[in-house]
């Protein structure tokens, strides 16, 4: 789950990290009032859950409250990477001398958090990481001990932070690490971390992504969850214990088990088609599960055929087949279905499906080819 900049900054401020004075605004009037209260110049920043706001024109500097109003008018309602901007954050513009980068995330290979610090912060940190990885200093604190003072010091020396900023940056690194731990973040990032003309250090931006698996113990953060329009289906699926990801093709996919569903998506692509979604219904696949899964997949108007790929394990293939048959009889779907059963009692399941108004195939590859063929046929009247 992603937090907005203003939410992340509040958490940083609570941990004692210096941030510019700022206010939230949802209208141009509010933005003007915020600018007046804070004192110009201000930065007016779109609050959306995507990166690259600056490059997309979502951040404007205003020299007066009137300019802040115009900036907010221009930014509110604009779309950045498909997301509509509904809020702006108005904050005091910093007197920037230099931009640093500071971030904490997971290093999967080492199974430790990694703290990264660089003196070349700003918009293109990903490119720096790619082209000049040596310009980013890294440290791997023990999850049992946290980021120790000597580790933070080593980082500022390794990154080549100027003498005057060493202590404040090391201090901010330790505080950011504690935010990362206390919020169960998967990413805690300050980019840029401003060094101002007077030498003081200030968080210019803040990004905080929270581990969804930890929301049960982060009730305050869980309340901040925003479901955008294209995530509504994903949320609905999650409530049913499914895992759904919208894709841009026309073959709907239903399967049990993440790996099996991924392999099904691959088989569809290998057969020359494009999957409309990823939908993992989890372990079993009884009747009501198949019914709700079909509802979710068919809610996407682009779907032209549906491929159901179920491995019968603890839930046997014949039970799955009965479930699918019941659904097809009581709620005939608007597009053709192809089902492929494997595993325990798969043959018995296929025998049951023999006379039904759906395509049954024995292998994943054949089923994928059939689903792709049906998706490219003209729509039935």
């Amino acid at each position: 789950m992603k937090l907005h900049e203003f939410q992340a900054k509040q958490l940083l401020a609570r941990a004692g990290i210096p941030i510019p004075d700022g206010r939230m605004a949802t209208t141009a009037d509010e933005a003007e009032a915020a600018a007046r209260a804070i004192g110009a110049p201000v930065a007016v920043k779109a609050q959306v859950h995507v990166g690259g706001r600056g490059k997309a024109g979502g951040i404007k500097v205003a020299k007066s409250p009137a300019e802040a109003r115009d900036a907010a008018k221009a930014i509110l309602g604009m779309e950045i990477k498909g997301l509509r901007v509904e809020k702006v954050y108005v904050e005091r513009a910093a007197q920037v001398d230099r931009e640093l980068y500071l971030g904490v995330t997971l290093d999967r290979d080492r199974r430790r958090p990694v703290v990264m610090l660089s003196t070349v912060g700003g918009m293109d940190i990903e490119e720096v990481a790619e082209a000049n990885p040596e310009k980013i200093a890294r440290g791997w604190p023990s999850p049992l001990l946290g980021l120790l003072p000597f580790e933070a010091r080593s980082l500022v020396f390794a990154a080549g932070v100027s003498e005057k900023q060493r202590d404040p940056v090391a201090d901010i690194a330790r505080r950011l690490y504690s935010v990362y731990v206390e919020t169960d973040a998967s990413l805690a990032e300050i980019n840029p971390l401003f060094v101002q003309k007077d030498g003081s250090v200030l968080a210019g931006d803040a990004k905080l992504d929270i581990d969804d698996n930890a929301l049960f113990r982060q009730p305050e953060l869980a309340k901040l969850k925003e479901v955008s329009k294209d995530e509504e289906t994903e949320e609905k699926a999650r409530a049913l214990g499914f895992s759904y990801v919208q894709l841009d093709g026309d073959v709907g996919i239903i399967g049990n088990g993440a790996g099996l569903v991924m392999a099904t998506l691959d088989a569809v692509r290998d057969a020359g088609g494009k999957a409309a979604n990823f939908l993992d219904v989890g372990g079993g696949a009884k009747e009501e599960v198949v019914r709700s899964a079909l509802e979710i997949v068919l809610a996407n108007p682009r779907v032209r055929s549906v491929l159901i790929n179920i491995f019968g394990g603890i839930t046997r293939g014949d039970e799955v087949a009965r479930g699918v048959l019941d659904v097809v009889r009581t709620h005939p779907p608007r597009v053709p279905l192809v089902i492929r059963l494997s595993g325990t009692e798969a043959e018995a399941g296929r025998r049951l499906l023999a006379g039904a108004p759906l395509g049954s195939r024995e292998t994943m590859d054949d089923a994928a080819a059939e689903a792709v063929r049906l998706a490219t046929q003209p729509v039935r009247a």
Partner: protein
Amino acid sequence: MSVLLDRDTRVLVQGLGREGSFHAARMRDYGTKVVGATKPGKGGTTQDGIPLFDTVAEAVDSTDANTSIVFVPAPYAMDAMLEAIDAGIDLVIAITEGVPVADMLKVTAVLETATTILVGPNGPGAITPGQAKVGIMPAENFSPGGVGFVSRSGTLTYEIADLLTRAGLGQSTCIGVGGDPVIGLPTPDAVRLLNEDPATEAIVIVGEIGGSAEERAAEYMRAEGKKPAVAFIAGRSAPPGKRMGHAGAIVSGNQGTAESKVRAFEEAGIPVANAPSEIPGLVKRALRR
């Protein structure tokens, strides 16, 4: 011979709830020695004929359990794993889905100084066909033999075991390492166990997009491989930035792509199947060489 589990495996169940008791019964049906379960406050009683204990340490003292299987819900899973590690259990298999990453970082940090091997979480467990099953896999799809099998998936593992079994290729031990980004026994370590197991003649490695465990496994096999291996990667068609069901299955930037994994295996001389159905044929060809 086999790895991780055999006829002498003595299993303790942590979390004898609905799922735990269902699978404890299936494990017993398979012939696995289920010697006890923990249920704080119910020590000294039994449930479904399984003796209950208040703590893991007590259970180990009374039953000589050397393996535990964890079914407890995600908020309490870290505590359960740490309790088993603290009691000196040799092998902990965690089935639980949805454990916070921060908890797993603590558990794996403790593992660094312990002798316990942790498999999972968020996986189907492990099975040495014909000897012991400590997991939730449908046993019908597995058969004894010489193919060692490591996988990040659940049902895809059963599917491939089923294909191998139908092709007459039995399995030495199948290890479902789990679909989370931080797990106890990552793919390269599981591959190493099978590479050093005399009963394993060939290794099947089933990976997914996300992370670089497959690349590291390929590198290990290139340097130290003693037997043929075949690989399969799920998620070749997945777009970047989308988490494909498993928390660990995500391509971020150019990290964790299927291309990188396929290339690593090919460079290590390990053939990569395009579909699960190709795996038995590739294993047979690899064994003939």
